[in-house]
């Protein structure tokens, strides 16, 4: 296997990306509701757990978006659009089957990194736009976290590129099929990348922008479809990063018997469920502690990770 991927027509590709995000969001939402009810020990009424989120979505759709005193409407609409757009960008460069991706970009991991940074821009704008103090604090808090986890994700993805000798995500999968899965030969990478996934998708315990301690921060002034768009973005981003985790560390579509896309889906859902479960059991960490740990513990760990991965790649 060479890691060269076939690509569908761009329009079909866009439909596929949207489909992945919508299905992923549906699964994450359902998993979130089920895990929440399990953690709350609310009895085992699975049907209620499954139905409740869809009713909440219907409620969002019939509610209005009120104006604030003097918002920046343009940016307020752009922010969720850009945030979901960056999730779409990330999905478009990831392999979605054994030998195809929507876009087989040779600089895949850099595009993935760009999507992450532009998502940070979107979150900042979402907190800035409503002209509301709590939203603004949420936005700045997220930027502090974003500037810290950025380096971690760069190191982790660069380490994954070492054995693949390429920045293409297709090659990264191929190199894992030729050698061992990255989760085994780069053991520190997976936890580091999960930190990034939780942070960028604004999920607990690392949801710095939309924390309930700021009355939900950047989303505190949103209601109705606008809020639905933002919540869709968070779950779409979680989907995209669960997918990226499955591709980079769990060899994506590789596996026996089942077709590639099915293996990828199984691995992605498993990662997503772990992330959602973390959100319901781990308390939100304070931002100063987050920044301190990211720079003094996780960053040295990612240096170590790079060294281990480098030695492993040469061995």
């Amino acid at each position, binding site marked *: 296997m060479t890691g060269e991927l076939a*690509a569908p027509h*761009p329009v079909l*590709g*866009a439909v596929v*990306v*949207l489909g992945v995000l919508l299905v992923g969001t549906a699964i994450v939402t359902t998993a979130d509701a089920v895990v929440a009810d399990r953690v709350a020990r609310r009895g085992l009424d699975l049907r209620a757990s499954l139905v409740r989120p869809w009713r909440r979505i219907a409620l969002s759709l019939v509610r209005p*978006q*009120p*104006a*604030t*005193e003097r*918002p920046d*409407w343009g940016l307020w*609409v752009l922010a*969720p*659009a*850009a945030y*979901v*757009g*960056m999730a*779409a*960008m990330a*999905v*478009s460069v990831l392999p979605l089957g054994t030998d195809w991706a*929507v*876009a087989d970009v*040779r600089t895949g*991991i*850099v595009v993935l990194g760009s999507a992450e940074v532009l998502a940070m821009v979107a979150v900042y704008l979402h907190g800035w736009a*409503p*002209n*509301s*103090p*709590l939203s*603004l604090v949420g936005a700045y808090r997220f*930027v*502090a976290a974003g*500037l810290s986890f*950025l*380096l971690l994700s*760069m190191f982790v993805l*660069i380490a994954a*590129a070492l*054995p693949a*000798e390429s*920045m293409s995500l297709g090659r990264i999968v191929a190199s894992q099929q030729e050698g061992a899965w990255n989760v085994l030969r780069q053991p520190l990478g997976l936890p580091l990348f999960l930190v990034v996934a939780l942070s960028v998708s604004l999920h607990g315990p690392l949801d710095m922008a939309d924390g309930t301690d700021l*009355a939900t921060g950047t989303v505190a*002034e949103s209601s*109705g*479809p*606008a809020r639905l768009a933002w919540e*869709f973005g968070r779950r779409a981003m979680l989907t995209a990063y669960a997918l990226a985790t499955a591709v980079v560390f769990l060899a994506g579509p590789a596996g026996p018997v089942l077709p590639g896309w099915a293996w990828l889906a199984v691995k992605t859902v498993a990662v997503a469920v772990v992330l959602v479960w973390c959100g319901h059991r781990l308390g939100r960490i304070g931002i*100063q502690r987050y920044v*301190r740990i990211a*720079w*003094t513990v996780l960053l040295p760990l990612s240096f170590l990770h790079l*060294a281990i991965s*480098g030695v492993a*790649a*040469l061995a």
Partner: protein
Amino acid sequence: MLGAFLAVVVATGTTMLLVGWLASWGRTPDPTEAHWSTTLPVLGGHEPRVHAWNRFHARYYPMALVLMAFEMEMMFMYPWAVVFVEVGGRALVEMGVFLALLSLGVLYLWREGGLSWQ
């Protein structure tokens, strides 16, 4: 290669348009047309005295500045990763030296208390 980027642009653009349409659904373009008392920002009952859009003094600015320099150097690492196996042990040592230099900067930031809120 350009075809792949076209696919990225089409997928991203379509998604942004659709979500932008959803997010703009039912907005009141002119806030002065809305009932004024419904437009006050969420503060739990009090009117704000000033606009939230003020000079926001982010407390982590030394970290932001150091990150900028750090990230600029990180851009060298992507091409390095591609040729790493080809070049071999020399690449590992050279990047080790490079990263050791960078860590000096971060170490200094930490030592001066630049990671805590200013």
